[in-house]
């Protein structure tokens, strides 16, 4: 082993490290900017507000990261959120739910997740068995999933007061929102799954080279379906959290444009669109960056609309850097 420490290799090492940690640097820049400019930024309340808002994006983005790792994409996450969010109040507000509150609550948590699981199976089977492009396959539920939620609720806003259910979105552990801890727990679990299980190995292998993974005898179909199922179930959970935060379920708005936030968070977090990489904590980092940009603009009186343009710029910049790294 010869030790080559010319200035050139040092520099390439330095630039690649810059690109690898672009997300962290961006986060640091935003944080410093906020500490200087935004009033009351260093308050625990600000932290709690941001955590409660970022948790849903992070949870969906982690699922999206798994799907992107297989080289796919899931456009239906927002619609699945609307569907599961519409089901929960329907169940615990029903006669059965009123008569047996405990059973009703359990059903209100499990049935929506089950529905989300079915959605994931649907997406996964169309993608892996029928070999339809993911963007089109998930377009079906993107269109009709929200429609089903609106048909179920007849388009009505469902309001309720159910403290046990609302704990999902308003509860606190050690002073921090429950859903923040939940997102962290899911991240740890998924990190383990991706890096330490056979499923995770094949997940990354499929994204790296699907043909090779199949020829090597990997269970390509099952792993792909698994990725879509996990993504959908996590979306369903996020839908429940949003409903719990608001103590109301609006099928028209729940999860609207979430697919964009989730994709953006995954990409900013370092997921490669052609697959092969599943940075779970990167997805959380991406979600935090997107949430903080939104918060920064709003807290400094910039209109909501301009925040959309900023988000567009972030997505373009992140992918551009990613492409540049590839070449």
């Amino acid at each position, binding site marked *: 082993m010869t030790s080559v420490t010319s200035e050139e290799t040092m520099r390439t090492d330095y630039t690649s490290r810059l690109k690898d940690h672009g997300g962290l640097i961006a986060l640091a820049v935003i944080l410093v900017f906020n500490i200087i400019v935004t009033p009351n930024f260093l308050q625990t309340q600000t932290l709690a507000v941001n955590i409660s808002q970022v948790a849903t994006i992070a949870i969906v983005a982690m699922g999206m990261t798994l799907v992107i790792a297989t080289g796919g994409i899931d456009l239906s996450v927002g619609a699945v959120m609307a569907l599961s969010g519409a089901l929960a109040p329907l169940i615990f507000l029903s006669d059965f739910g009123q008569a047996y509150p405990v059973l009703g609550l359990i059903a209100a948590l499990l049935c929506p997740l089950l529905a989300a699981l079915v959605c994931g199976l649907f997406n996964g089977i169309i993608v892996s068995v029928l070999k339809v492009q993911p963007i089109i396959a998930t377009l079906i539920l993107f269109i009709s999933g929200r429609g089903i939620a609106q048909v179920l609720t007849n388009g009505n806003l469902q309001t309720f007061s159910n403290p046990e259910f609302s704990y999902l979105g308003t509860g606190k552990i050690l002073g921090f929102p429950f859903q923040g801890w939940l997102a962290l727990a899911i991240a740890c679990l998924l990190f383990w799954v991706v890096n330490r299980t056979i499923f995770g190995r094949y997940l990354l292998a499929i994204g790296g080279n699907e043909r090779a993974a199949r020829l090597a005898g990997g269970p390509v179909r099952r792993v792909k379906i698994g990725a879509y199922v996990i993504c959908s179930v996590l979306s369903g959970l996020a839908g429940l959290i949003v409903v719990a935060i608001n103590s109301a379920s609006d099928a028209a708005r729940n999860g609207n444009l979430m697919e964009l936030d989730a994709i953006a968070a995954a990409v900013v977090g370092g997921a490669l669109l052609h697959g092969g990489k599943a940075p779970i904590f990167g997805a959380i980092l991406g979600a935090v960056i997107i949430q903080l940009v939104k918060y920064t603009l709003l807290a400094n009186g910039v209109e909501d609309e*301009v925040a*959309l343009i900023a988000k567009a710029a972030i997505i373009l910049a992140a992918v551009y850097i990613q492409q540049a790294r590839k070449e």
Partner: protein
Amino acid sequence: MLDQNAFDMRKYISRNPQSVAVWIALFVLIAFGLLRYDNFGGAYNITSFLNYNAMFIAISVGMCFVILTGGIDLSVGSVAAFTSVVAAYLSPYGIEVAMPLAILSGVAFGLFNAVCIVFGRIPPFIATLATMLGAKGGSLVISGAQTIAVDWGSNFTQLGMEKALGIVPWTIVIVGILVVGLWIVLEMTSLGRTILAVGGGEDASVMMGLKVNRAKIFAYALSGGCAGLAGVFLASGFGAGQPLEGVGWELSAIASVVVGGTLLTGGLGSIPATVAGALLLGLVFNILNFENGKGWISFSAYWQMVIRGAFLFAVILFQTRVMNRQSNVEFAK
């Protein structure tokens, strides 16, 4: 095999079975409507149906070009909303100023997409997604998140109401010209052939020395321009620029293109079949409305989305079955 140039029906059907299927489905649905509902074939229903669907046809044919190159344009709905606001602001200067400038603003978004995709090497899906957000933010900013009323004193609103030769609304005439023009471009010009070649195999096209970049830039600029035209129709038809409209339009357009048998991987597709696909999707709602009018059943508006998705599912099932059969045949050879 004697005459290569003669139109061979069997060859056409075997090469592009779905284009034929969409026409058959369209005629069956029209026949069903004519037989079942009294006013279905009336002049009022036909013109209002075409007038309303003119914008969807416009964005669908633009989308068809983009998909033929193997790309996708998710920004069309937001761009249409943006240009509807532009058109509403410019409406006092008359249609001859408002329409070209609004379309040009759409083309500008399309060119931005093209630059990101062709020169920035950003995947079309991401680039146009970002433009979707940017155009949405832009239209909300320039309109102050309010609908912008058009100037009723100018000739702008006549676009959707006045009729050419007293028979056909101008929107339908314009869309008709657009469709025929693009059909000719795709089928008869070298640009059109290049677009098909790019979708069929981009690397091969580059090696053959085809002007791949030019073809792609044209496709995205065209899609932006078509979205701009749809925005003009939106503003004139509803009497206001609508910054919040256009949500989900890109999906309707993609669905129309897919239903029309255009391969999502690019390289194979047709403009008339795309129009048929757009009409078919529109007709489903038209017939639902008539069915509701009969009072036997009552479908809420929310069912439309469910049915639209189910429709797309059915088409995809059909497409994959046909494609698998074709690839099996090719494999056997």
